[in-house]
C-alpha cells in the first residue's frame, strides 16, 4: 500500500518534471528565436534608421521647426513697419490742412495721449499701439485703392472733406482701405484702427471732462479677460495638440518595418520554409517574432519619448511654448507614458504581424499595412482635435484613447481610473490581436502564402463542422462587440428627455441582440454546433444544487467585498447617489419589472455570451484557470462601472468555474439570476429587507456577522459541490 502510494507520487513528480522540461524547452526555443531575430533586425541599416535616426531627428525638426515658425511669423507681423497710403488731392486747398500733415498730427496726438495715459491707466491702452505708431510710415499716392490693391502700401486712409459731413459737423470720418486677401494688410488695418479708436476715446474723454461728467460712462461695462490656466497647462495644451498624436503614430510605425521584415520579408527571401522545417511549433516561431516586433515598437516609443523630452527640455522650447515662460515639461510623466504605451505597442505589433503574415512579398505587405495605418489615423486625428475629451466611449476607442491619455498625462493629469480604463480596454484588444496573429501564423495558408488555401480558411464551403468555436472567433467577436456595446450603453444613458427606466428597457432589448443573436449567427456561419458551443445541454442535478447555493448566498460575500473595497478606497458619493437615481426608475412599477430587466434578461444573455460563447472558445486552447480569469475580467470590463470591477470579476470567476465544471450553461444562468434577483428584491421590497434586519442598509455598510457566516458558508458549499468530480471520468 505504502509502496503504491510512493509510485503514484513518483509518477506525478515525473509528469510534472516532464511538463516543466517541455515548458523550459519551449521557453528556450522562443528565446533563441527572439535573440536571433533581434540580432538580425538590428544588423539591418534600415531598422536602425527607422528606429533611431528618425525619432532623434524628427522631434527637434518638428518642435523647433513649428514653434520657431509660429513665433517668427507672429513676431514679424507685430513689429513690422507698416506703410499707410494717403490720397494726394491736387484740388485740396493748400492753406487748409493737407491730408498728410493732418494724419501726421492725428497720429502724433494719439501717441502723446497714449504716452500720457500709459502710467495711470495702462489697461485702457491698446498695448501695442505705441509700437504701432512708431512703426508707421506715411506715403502719398494718387489712388489709394489702387495702391493698396497693388501692394504699394499696406493700408490706405481716406479723410472725408468737410462738405460731405454737413449733417454731422463735429464728426471726423476716416475710411481705412485694406486688402482682406493680404494677411499683412489686414493686420495693418486692425492696428491703424486701434490707433484711431484710442484717439477717438481720448477725444471723448476730453469732452467728458470739459462737461464735468465721469469718463467711466465711456465704458459702462469694462471687460478684460484673464488667463487662469497654469503655465504648465498652457504648455501642455500646446504639447497636447501634436505631440501625443505623433508619439502614438510613431509607436505604430515602429512596428511596421520589423513586422514586414520578419514575416513577408522572411518569405520573400525563402528562409521561412527553412524555419518551418525545424521541429519548432509555428506558435513558438510566431511568439518569438511577435515579441521582437513588440520590443522594437517599444524601443521606438522609448526613443521617441526620450527624443521629445530632450528636445523640449534642453532646447529651451518649454519657455517658448508656454505663455508665462516658466513651464517645465513634466518629465516625470514620461516613464508613466511609456508604461501605458506597452499594451498599445503589443496591440499594433500583433495587428501588423497578423496582416503581414499573409503577404508574399515586402511590397504586398506594405499594401496591406496602408489600410491599417489609415484606420489608426482617423481616431488618432479626431483625438488630436481640441475639444475631444477622454470620457465616455472615447476611453474605449483604440488609438483615440491612447492619444487622449498621452495628452492628459502631458497636461499633468493622473487619473488612475481613466488610465485603468484605457489600459484594460487596450489589453482586451491586444489579447485578441495576439490570439488572431498566432492563429494566422499557424495556418498553412500563412506559411506558404497560398491564396487558395487562404480563401479556404474564410469560405464556409470548406469548413468542417465543429463542436466548439475557435478562440480566434470568440476573441475577435468580443473585441469588436466591446466598443460597440460601450457605444450603445453610453448612447442610452438617462438624459433630460429619457428616463432611467428607458435605459433599462433599451438594455433589455439590445442585450439579446448583441450578446446572443450575434454569436449564434456567427456560430451558425462557421458550422459550429450551437448546443455544444453555448453549453445548452443539461447539467447534472449536483451542479444545479451548487448553483442554487451560490446564487442564494453569493450576494452576501459580494456585498462585504464591496464594503471592504470601500474602506480601502472610498467610492465617491456621487457615484453611489447616481446609482440610487437609476434605481428610482422602478418606482410605481411592479417587482417583476426590475426582476425581468435586471435579473432575468441580463443573467441569460450575459451567461450565454461570456460563459457560453467566450469560455467555449477558450476551452480548447487555454488552461482552465487562465480561461476562467480572462472571461471574468472581460465580463467585468463590459460592466462599465469600474468601481465594481473587482466584485464583478470575482463573481465572473465563480460563474466561470461553475460552467467549466458542469459543461453546461444552465447552472451559471441560474446562479447569476438568483444573485441579481435577490439584490433586486432587497432593494425594492422593504419588507424583505426589514425581516432580515437590513432596512436602510447603505451599500457601504457591513452586514451582521451571522448573515456573513451563512452566506459565505453557502458559497463555499456550492463551490465544493461543483468541485467534487472525482467519480466522473471525462
Amino acid at each position, binding site marked *: 500500500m505504502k509502496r503504491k502510494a510512493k509510485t503514484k507520487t513518483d509518477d506525478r513528480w515525473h509528469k510534472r518534471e516532464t511538463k516543466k522540461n517541455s515548458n523550459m*524547452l519551449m521557453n*528556450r*526555443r522562443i528565446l*533563441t*528565436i527572439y535573440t*536571433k531575430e533581434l*540580432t*538580425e533586425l538590428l*544588423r*539591418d541599416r534600415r531598422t536602425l534608421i527607422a528606429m533611431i535616426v528618425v525619432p532623434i531627428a524628427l522631434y527637434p525638426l518638428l518642435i523647433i521647426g513649428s514653434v520657431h515658425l509660429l513665433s517668427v511669423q507672429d513676431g514679424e507681423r507685430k513689429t513690422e513697419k507698416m506703410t499707410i497710403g494717403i490720397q494726394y488731392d491736387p484740388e485740396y486747398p493748400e492753406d487748409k490742412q493737407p491730408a498728410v500733415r493732418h494724419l501726421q498730427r492725428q497720429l502724433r496726438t494719439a501717441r502723446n495721449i497714449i504716452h500720457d495715459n500709459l502710467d495711470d491707466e495702462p489697461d485702457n491702452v491698446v498695448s501695442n499701439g505705441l509700437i504701432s505708431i512708431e512703426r508707421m510710415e506715411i506715403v502719398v499716392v494718387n489712388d489709394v485703392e489702387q495702391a493698396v490693391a497693388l501692394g504699394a502700401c499696406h493700408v490706405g486712409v481716406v479723410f472725408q472733406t468737410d462738405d460731405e459731413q454737413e449733417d454731422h459737423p463735429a464728426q471726423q470720418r476716416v475710411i481705412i482701405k485694406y486688402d482682406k486677401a493680404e494677411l499683412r494688410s489686414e493686420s495693418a488695418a486692425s492696428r491703424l484702427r486701434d490707433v484711431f479708436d484710442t484717439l477717438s476715446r481720448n477725444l471723448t474723454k476730453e469732452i467728458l471732462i470739459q462737461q464735468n461728467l465721469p469718463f467711466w460712462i465711456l465704458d459702462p461695462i469694462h471687460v478684460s479677460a484673464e488667463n487662469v490656466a497654469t503655465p504648465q497647462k498652457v504648455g501642455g495644451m500646446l504639447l497636447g495638440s501634436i505631440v501625443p498624436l505623433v508619439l502614438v503614430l510613431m509607436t505604430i510605425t515602429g512596428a511596421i518595418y520589423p513586422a514586414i521584415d520578419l514575416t513577408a520579408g522572411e518569405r520573400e*527571401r*525563402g*528562409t*521561412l*520554409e*527553412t*524555419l*518551418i*522545417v*525545424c*521541429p*519548432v*511549433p509555428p506558435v513558438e516561431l510566431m511568439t518569438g517574432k511577435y515579441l521582437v516586433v513588440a520590443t522594437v515598437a517599444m524601443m521606438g516609443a522609448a526613443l521617441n519619448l526620450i527624443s521629445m523630452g530632450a528636445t523640449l527640455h534642453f532646447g529651451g522650447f518649454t519657455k517658448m511654448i508656454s505663455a508665462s515662460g516658466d513651464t517645465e515639461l513634466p518629465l516625470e510623466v514620461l516613464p508613466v507614458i511609456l508604461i501605458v504605451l506597452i499594451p498599445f505597442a503589443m496591440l499594433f505589433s500583433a495587428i501588423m504581424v497578423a496582416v503581414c503574415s499573409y503577404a508574399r512579398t515586402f511590397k504586398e505587405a506594405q499594401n496591406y499595412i496602408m489600410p491599417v495605418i489609415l484606420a489608426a489615423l482617423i481616431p488618432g486625428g479626431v483625438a488630436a482635435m481640441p475639444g475631444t475629451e477622454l470620457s465616455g466611449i472615447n476611453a474605449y476607442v483604440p488609438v483615440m484613447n491612447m492619444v487622449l491619455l498621452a495628452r492628459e498625462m502631458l497636461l499633468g493629469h493622473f487619473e488612475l481610473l481613466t488610465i485603468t480604463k484605457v489600459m484594460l480596454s487596450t489589453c482586451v484588444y491586444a489579447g485578441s490581436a495576439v490570439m488572431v496573429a498566432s492563429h494566422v501564423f499557424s495556418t*498553412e495558408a500563412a*506559411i*506558404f502564402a*497560398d491564396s*487558395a*488555401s487562404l*480563401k*479556404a480558411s474564410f*469560405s464556409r*464551403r*470548406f469548413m468542417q463542422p465543429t463542436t466548439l468555436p475557435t478562440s480566434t472567433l470568440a476573441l475577435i467577436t468580443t473585441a469588436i462587440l466591446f466598443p460597440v456595446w460601450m457605444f450603445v450603453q453610453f448612447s442610452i444613458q438617462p438624459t433630460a428627455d429619457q428616463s432611467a427606466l428607458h435605459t433599462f428597457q433599451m438594455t433589455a432589448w439590445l442585450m439579446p441582440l448583441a450578446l446572443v443573436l450575434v454569436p449564434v449567427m456567427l456560430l451558425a456561419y462557421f458550422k459550429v454546433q450551437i448546443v455544444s458551443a453555448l453549453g445548452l445541454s443539461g447539467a447534472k442535478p449536483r451542479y444545479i444544487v451548487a448553483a442554487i447555493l451560490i446564487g442564494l448566498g453569493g450576494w452576501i460575500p459580494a456585498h462585504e467585498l464591496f464594503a471592504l473595497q470601500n474602506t480601502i478606497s472610498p467610492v465617491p458619493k456621487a457615484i453611489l447617489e447616481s446609482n440610487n437615481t437609476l434605481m428610482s426608475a422602478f418606482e410605481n412599477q411592479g417587482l417583476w419589472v426590475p426582476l425581468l430587466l435586471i435579473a432575468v434578461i441580463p443573467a441569460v444573455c450575459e451567461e450565454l455570451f461570456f460563459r457560453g460563447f467566450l469560455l467555449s472558445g477558450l476551452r480548447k486552447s487555454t488552461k482552465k484557470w487562465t480561461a476562467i480569469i480572462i472571461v471574468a475580467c472581460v465580463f467585468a470590463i463590459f460592466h462599465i462601472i469600474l468601481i465594481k470591477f473587482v466584485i464583478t470579476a470575482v463573481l465572473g470567476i465563480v460563474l466561470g468555474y461553475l460552467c467549466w465544471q458542469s459543461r453546461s450553461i444552465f447552472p451559471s444562468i441560474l446562479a447569476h439570476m438568483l444573485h441579481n434577483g435577490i439584490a433586486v428584491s432587497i432593494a425594492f421590497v422593504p419588507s424583505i429587507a426589514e425581516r432580515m434586519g437590513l432596512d436602510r442598509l447603505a451599500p457601504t455598510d457591513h452586514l451582521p456577522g451571522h448573515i456573513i457566516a451563512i452566506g459565505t458558508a453557502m458559497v463555499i458549499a456550492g463551490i465544493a459541490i461543483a468541485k467534487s468530480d472525482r467519480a466522473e471520468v471525462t
Partner: protein
Amino acid sequence: MPIIRANQLRKSFPTPNGTLKHAVDGVSFEIEAGTIYGLLGPNGAGKTTTLRMLGGLIAPTSGEAIIDGHNVGENPFAVKHSIGFLTANTGLYQRLSPREILQYFARLYGLAPERIKNRVDHLIDWLDMHSFADLRCGALSTGQKQRTSIARALVGDPIVLIMDEPTLGLDVLSNRIILDFIRREHDHGKTIILSTHYLDEAETICDRIGLMHGGKLMAEGTMQELQALSGEEKLSAIFLKLFGEAQGEDENGRPLA
C-alpha cells in the same frame, strides 16, 4: 523494415471556382533505410507537396505518412527531429554568418548547449567551410551558400534527408557539390528522398525511382524494374512511355487504338 511509409497520401486545395484540386492524389510508397529514393515528374506533378507532407510542413487531407515509427500527421515535431529538409530555394539569413546560422538551427533542434559548438565545428570542418564561416551570408558565392544550406540541413544529425529539387538551377560546380554530398551521406547509411526533373541525374544516383504525374504515382521501382515494366532503356523514354499510357497515347503522342 521500411523507414518511410506513405499510405494513400492526399492533399487537396480549393480552387477559385469552388472545386477541390488534388495536388497529391492517393500516393503510396515505402522506402528502405539506407537507400536513395527519387521522385520524378514534370512541374506540377505533386512532388513538392508530397515531400512537404513527409516533412510535416503541411498536413495531408487524408492518408498517412510514417517516418521512423512516427506518424507525421499526429506528431510532426518528432518527425522533424529525425529529418533534414533541403530545398533548392532554401534561403539563408543574409545578415547572419554561416556559423551563426548553424548555431541558431542547432538550438532550434534542441541540441544541448555544450554539444552545439562541437556539432557546428564538425560540420564546418566536414564541408570545408573555414574560409567563409564568419562572413555574412549575403557576401557568399552560390557554392558557399549551397554548402551552408547542406550544413544547415545536417545540423540536427538527421537519419532521413528530404531534398526538394536540390540541383534546380545550379551551375556545374555547385551541382557536383550536391551530388557528392548525396553520395557521401548515402555511404554513411542515411536514407535520402529527393525530387527532381533531371532524369539523367536520377538515373545515376537513385536506388529506387517513383514516377509522378498529375498527383499520382504512375510507376515505382528500381531502374531494372522500370525498364522491365516499360520495355524502354533510358529513363526519359520510360517516363514518356508510361506517361503516354496513362494519357492513352503511344510514345509518339498518337492515341492508342
